[in-house]
């Protein structure tokens, strides 16, 4: 994690960031370090796990993890957003090895992830899991709720959604984020999104016949 801080400084040009400045950083690290069955060598393997970053804005933490895990050269981290950099302020799957979807506009990753899960199932690829990371404010987009309802209804159990909840949704989610999923038949775990063991445990608690959501609660974006 310390080395990620250095990578983040390189990406942003700001020495003052601590890892906690990035709501997604711990979840991303646990995913790539402990959970996802993927490596630079297997990134095109049909049997790999898929990770789809739907919350495409603020991708510095994602790029830092990809660099640490060897998907992209560390020297790519300099110059993010420049004309000749493959790393933009929103990721492009055609430019960055290991990036499964191009994202930026909110509310696309989860519906795309449902399609990926269905496509794998239709080809008899039952081992891979599809993980989609969204933000709590991103859930405002109605397109997510089309996917949440449908995935629950058809029991799309190879799909895991991670909601990073830094309480940035303008109108909030009364009764909690997990309830939006569980009412549609999903299994759900809510835990502290800075504790790596809690994150790993929450990600692994998916069950047959149901899609799974892990809500990773972090510090409020706008302060308590």
């Amino acid at each position, binding site marked *: 994690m310390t080395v990620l801080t250095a990578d983040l400084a390189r990406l942003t040009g700001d020495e003052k960031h601590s890892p906690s400045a990035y709501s997604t950083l711990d979840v991303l690290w646990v995913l790539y370090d402990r959970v996802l069955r993927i490596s630079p060598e297997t990134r095109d393997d*049909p049997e790999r796990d898929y990770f789809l970053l739907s919350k495409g804005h603020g991708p510095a933490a994602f790029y830092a993890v990809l660099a640490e895990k060897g998907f992209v050269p560390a020297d790519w981290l300099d110059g993010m957003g420049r004309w000749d950099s493959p790393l933009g302020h929103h990721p492009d*799957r*055609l430019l960055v090895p290991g990036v*499964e*979807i*191009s994202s930026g*506009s909110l509310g*696309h990753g989860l*519906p*795309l*992830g*449902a*399609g*990926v*899960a*269905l*496509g*794998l*199932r*239709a*080809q008899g*690829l039952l081992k891979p899991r599809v993980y989609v990371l969204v933000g709590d404010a991103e859930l405002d987009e*109605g*397109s997510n709720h*089309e*996917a949440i*309802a*449908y995935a629950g*209804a058809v029991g799309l159990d190879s799909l895991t959604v991670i909601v990073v909840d830094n309480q940035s949704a303008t109108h909030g989610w009364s009764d909690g984020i997990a309830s939006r999923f569980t009412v549609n038949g999903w299994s759900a775990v809510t835990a502290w999104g800075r504790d790596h063991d809690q994150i790993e445990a929450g990600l692994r608690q998916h069950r047959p016949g149901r899609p799974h959501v892990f809500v990773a609660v972090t510090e409020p974006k706008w302060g308590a």
Partner: protein
Amino acid sequence: MREAFVNATINLLDEDPRVALVLADISADAFAEAARTHRDRVLNVGIREQLMVSVAGGLALTGLRPIVHSYAPFVVERAWEQVKLDVDHQGVGAVVATIGASYDASASGRTHLSPGDVALIDTLDGWTVRVPGHADEVGPLLRAAAGDDSRVYLRLSTQTNARAVATGTDGRLTVVRPAGGDEVVVAVGPTLDAVLAATEGLDVTVAYTHTPRPFDVTGLRSLATGPTPAVAIVEPYLAGTSARIIADALRDRPHRLAALGVGRADLHRYGTPAEHASAHGLDTAGLRRSLVEFLGR
């Protein structure tokens, strides 16, 4: 055309394990049996058009060949950002096959009309746009589309010509009625019969295509010769959609161009497709008025 599409799609699902169909309730009845046979490749997501298009993008990311099907305004307009981002921007392909072209659903009113669909698709690069003029042209076009990973818009309509003109898939202009001069009227898809009737006795070349994208530029240049050729194009969707292509194709020679099609106005009218065609000047009488004036007869 819808029946031809359904039959061709069912055959493709049976033959090709890469082909998948994504629906949002529209036409689900017609595919009920196919959905039982191919549970994992016939996916009806309910009345969720955004999800329908995104799922198609996801399927394509895993190597399948998705066919997306619904009413044109619900796919191309309602789910436009999904078409743009979840298919096109991801660099994957899909076949988007719509019904309800322009004013097919005239009695349903503006909510079900989609004259701007091809113009919207045309804001993106590299799409093939197929506008068959007869049911017999549908199967070969769909089969060709399902065979690769390109991005294809297949626009099915209840408007149809009496006979199929081009059952091939190369998309080239077909001369239906030759004439000696340097004047040509290009009819796209189901506009051909009205164009033929409207140009009776006008001594003008009539050519047909079911493939406005990519437009057969070479074919057009070989027909629009002479010092100042005159080209009219009649399209069953928004007037002027192909004007930029033709202007560019003939940029090296002085020429005149008339681009006829569906107008932009929301007419706030119901009625029949024939009444809408008339209101937009796309019936035989309206086309004859426009073409006689343009050709100076």
